[in-house]
């Protein structure tokens, strides 16, 4: 079964398992679509928003400490969920700089095997179980019987995350320009680890095997790019990040559903 999961060796020689599984054929997201709920902006509005001189780049707002590390597990979807939720909290104004566990969600959606998962399962899990603090469920606790009662109790405080399935490229660009974080799938191969002089990652052809999130849209070297935060620690790319062009999504967007997450709810 292990050969179902792609593996890649990162710049530090660590094996990274790529655990974002393709949805089954005919899969339709159960979440409301972003485009029907939020009007898509036109190109002029998107450009005005992302080129505003006062705009603070998200990689500056979310520095090194926000970069997560899934290590050698296939838990990228869980880390995507944790990354999105912890940033959405911060963007709302919750300034406790809380880091959330990526493995907590993965533990409940991997079917008892470290063989990857589907992103929508992870997002649904947030609404049911929440996500606990990172220190309560560490990177290697990927099965439910390893999750402590304290972790489960803490997770219930962070179980509100509004998510919408993105249908179009314009919807994707609008969500990022509006300031939402977006969960995406990329195909991670050798090019994914090579960044050009502008910090833009190369493109690998494939259906998509790795889940990450984008938290910004900007113009770099005259090209519109999407700022992606990986979950492979700071050694990946530029301090854990890379800019992606739409080419990185041209194949994966049709195979995987992308999700915009505009807000959160907290329980006291």
């Amino acid at each position, binding site marked *: 079964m292990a050969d179902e999961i792609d593996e890649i060796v990162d710049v530090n020689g660590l094996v990274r398992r790529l655990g974002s599984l393709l949805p089954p054929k005919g899969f339709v997201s159960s979440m409301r679509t972003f485009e029907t*709920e*939020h*009007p898509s*902006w036109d190109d002029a*509005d*998107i450009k*005005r*928003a992302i080129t*505003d001189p*006062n*705009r*603070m780049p998200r990689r500056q*707002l979310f520095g090194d400490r926000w970069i997560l590390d899934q290590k050698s597990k296939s838990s990228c979807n869980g880390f995507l969920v944790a990354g999105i939720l912890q940033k959405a909290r911060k*963007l*709302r*104004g*919750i*300034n406790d700089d809380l880091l959330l566990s990526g493995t907590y969600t993965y533990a409940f959606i991997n079917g008892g095997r470290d063989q990857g998962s589907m992103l929508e399962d992870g997002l649904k899990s947030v609404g049911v179980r929440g996500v606990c603090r990172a220190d309560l469920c560490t990177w290697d606790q990927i099965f439910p019987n390893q999750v402590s009662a304290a972790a489960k109790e803490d997770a219930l405080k962070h179980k509100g995350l*509004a998510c919408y399935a993105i249908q179009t490229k314009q919807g994707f660009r609008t969500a990022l*320009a*509006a*300031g939402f974080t977006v969960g995406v799938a990329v195909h991670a191969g050798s090019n994914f680890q090579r960044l050009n002089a502008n910090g833009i990652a190369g493109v690998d052809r494939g259906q998509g095997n790795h889940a990450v999130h984008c938290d910004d849209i900007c113009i770099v070297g005259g090209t519109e790019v999407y700022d992606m935060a990986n979950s492979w620690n700071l050694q990946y790319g530029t301090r854990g990040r890379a800019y992606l062009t739409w080419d990185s999504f041209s194949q994966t967007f049709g195979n995987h559903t992308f999700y915009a997450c*505009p*807000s959160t*709810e*907290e329980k*006291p």
Partner: protein
Amino acid sequence: MHILAQLGGYSFDRIALAIVVLALLASSLVACADDLKPIPDHIAVKEPAIHLPFTPVLIEPDTPIPRPEPPTPTTISTIEKGQLYVVESSVGLISLQSPEGFLNVVTAKGPMSVYGLFVDGGKRPELRTYKSENILIVTGIKPGKTELILIPVGVTEQDAIVRQVLTVSGEGPQPPPVPPGPTPPVPQPTVKHLSIAVIEDVLRITPDAAILFASRQWAALPDAGHDVMRYDKTTSEPSGLQAIQDAGSVTLPVMVIRDKDSRLILKTVPLPKDVAALDVLVKSLTGG
């Protein structure tokens, strides 16, 4: 005994029988008294749970002063802009207004001290201490008439719900007459830090709002000591629901701005159009 028994022509046996009958009657009367239902006491008045402000403020003097007629307390029904209408209650209250949009209602736990102009006070600000456990501070937003409805938590009887029609007048309280002489210096704002609650429809965010939220100036507000929290209009968080109530029926997105220390509402305003307007607003409330 024989002589006594013969007195009045009654025998001793008959007298003994009469005593026994009387004893039985007495015990049955006691039993009947135990079964009597209590008669409602219409004279004793219970201490009301909810206290609305009224005028004049009655202060019991140390030594009684003979007066022909004490003034009759009259519930206040008008709030001028800038005045505080404070309700005290021993039980938690849910407040509603009908129609909405005329009043800001802030709930707080007592005892607490409040400095300001009171509807039942004079023309100068004063410091008052409210000792009740639950305190509602009501202020007017815009001129008009509305009904303030106060519902005690866990209420089971309609009589326990308090209704008070309030008129928000169009003009604020008149300043005290200026004494002759040099003009006193204009007082500077005393609010140090703000607590800003933004209520928005996250699915209708505009480019202008997104630009403001993504700006360095917005990100710098917490660093300057201000609290900023964004709530979607569908929030179920208690603090968000309170902010929505405080905002009243205002077009979204809207900001409810409080003094971070006293929690008193300073302003309810639409989201500033840009960072320049945000800067002006913050400086106008904090003095820089």
